[in-house]
């Protein structure tokens, strides 16, 4: 345990005193400020006119301001935090000849990787928590809305999911820093994987869906065909952690959303019901809706760390 604690403490110190952390934090804090400020101003002007004001506080996070909402921003650029914190964690030590020194101390070898991962997760948590708290403060000041108990719970769940999501990318970058000797290679590889999974998978999903189950002029009116196309698109899209995360958090942060599906087949009576009774979902129901997504996200994070752990434990370290 003493080894884990020592590594953890040192890594945490390094994170907080490094320039890259300061720069990253500045960028992210700036964007969240601006987004929430724009949303806040917009809301103050239109709060009366808004059709549903059940959870005005959560709208600070979910409303699309000029460019994107806070939630979308974390979905897009949150991974970057994880990547930047982890891409050189092991191979920098290797390059400087400090890794062999570390593991020749009386510690278990896994203390090194556990300490590094834990320090990253704690840094990420502090970062995300402070951003959420800052926006909360903005909301109180600009819009003048006070969060209710349920909103606080929802924000907590949102934070937990976000921490897992960003930690997933931390795990990916630590894995690459173990696999690749060169720091530049591991940085590039992790950024490449991030871009591929976040942006290209959704493009690929369209291509796959349109090839396997095309919707053309003949069958555009056929709901079966449209549904099949959409189903395939969604399934392929779920390969992307960003899609998983967006689905999971959108329902958590917006209680009015009742499903994660893009298309829902409804009969006329159901349609009438849905338009008449527009009540928010209780938190427990929202959690059930996103349960598969959340579980998958957490599982990927754990698997990713498990792979890094195993590779690191099996590796022969000579320098």
């Amino acid at each position: 345990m003493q080894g884990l604690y020592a590594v953890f403490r040192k890594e945490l110190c390094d994170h907080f005193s490094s320039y890259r952390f300061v720069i990253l934090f500045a960028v992210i804090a700036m964007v969240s400020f601006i987004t929430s400020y724009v949303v806040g101003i917009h809301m103050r002007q239109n709060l009366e006119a808004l059709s549903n004001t059940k959870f005005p506080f959560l709208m600070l996070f979910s409303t699309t301001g000029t460019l994107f909402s806070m939630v979308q921003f974390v979905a897009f650029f949150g991974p970057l935090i994880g990547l930047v914190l982890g891409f050189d964690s092991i191979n920098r030590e290797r390059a400087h000849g400090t890794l062999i020194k570390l593991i020749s101390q009386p510690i278990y070898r896994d203390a090194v990787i556990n300490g590094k991962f834990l320090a990253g997760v704690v840094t990420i948590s502090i970062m995300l928590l402070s951003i959420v708290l800052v926006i909360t403060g903005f909301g109180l000041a600009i819009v003048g809305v006070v969060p209710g108990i349920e909103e606080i719970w929802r924000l907590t769940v949102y934070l937990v999911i976000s921490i897992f999501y960003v930690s997933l990318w931390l795990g990916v970058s630590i894995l690459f820093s173990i696999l690749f000797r060169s720091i530049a290679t591991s940085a590039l590889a992790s950024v490449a994987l991030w871009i591929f999974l976040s942006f290209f998978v959704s493009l690929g999903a369209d291509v796959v869906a349109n090839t396997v189950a095309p919707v053309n002029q003949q069958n555009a009116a056929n709901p079966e065909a449209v549904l099949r196309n959409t189903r395939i698109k969604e399934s392929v899209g779920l390969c992307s952690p960003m899609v998983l995360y967006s689905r999971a958090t959108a329902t958590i942060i917006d209680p009015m959303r009742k499903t994660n599906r893009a298309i829902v087949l409804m009969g006329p009576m159901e349609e009438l019901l849905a338009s008449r009774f527009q009540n928010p979902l209780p938190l427990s129901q929202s959690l059930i809706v996103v349960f598969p997504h959340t579980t998958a996200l957490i599982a990927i994070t754990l698997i990713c760390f498990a792979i890094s752990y195993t590779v690191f434990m099996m590796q022969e370290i000579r320098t």
Partner: protein
Amino acid sequence: MDNGKIIETVGLTKRYGPQTAVDHLSFQVEDGEIFGFLGPNGAGKSTTLLMLLGLSRPTEGSARVCGLDPIRKAREVKRLVGYLPENVGFYGDMDAVQSLEYVAGLSGISTANLGDKIERLLDLVGLKAEARKKVGAYSRGMRQRLGVAEVLIKDPKVLFLDEPTLGLDPDGALRLIELIHSLNRDHNITVVLSSHNLYQVQKISHRVGIMIKGKMVAEGSMEKLAQDKFGVGDKEYSLEEIYMKYFQEV
């Protein structure tokens, strides 16, 4: 520990694919001696040291360090053995005191009196004046001496020093060798010293082992090796002559 042997290996072998780095190595290091571990580059000296520390798993054979199996009791062995690797690295943005504190934290040394201990060690290795200078600005000699201080902080019984004088100027190398000698003499620390600087090894080693192509071709005191190779004579042979003789034979 048993029968005064600090290190005992039996048929220790390490293979990397078809290549054999260490080939059925059997040797012993006695308590309280300085063992000069010689051999050309790539002879398998570092691999042997890594196996003795439990950092690398032998393909065959077994080893005992302080009576413990380095594979099963890796943590206990690493507590007793201080290892200074070849080209040891440091965190450039820490100063000497911070580096020592980090290593002490990893070794689980209580923080009580740690400051005094660090001061004493820095004094011992002659870095007291530069204690608060960033390690990134250290010269090679200073870094090597800081490395020695780092392995000494856990009060080891045994030191494995892998090419500690490599790349040092003559004065720096001499000071380091003297430091190693005094650690052995005054603190009763067993030292396994791997080096190419045969003159210095000869000066302080009690016994030497010559390892070539993964095999220990000779082991014993200087007189014994000279006798084996040159027969009894009135001439004193230097370690260099003995080493070259063995090297040419293989």
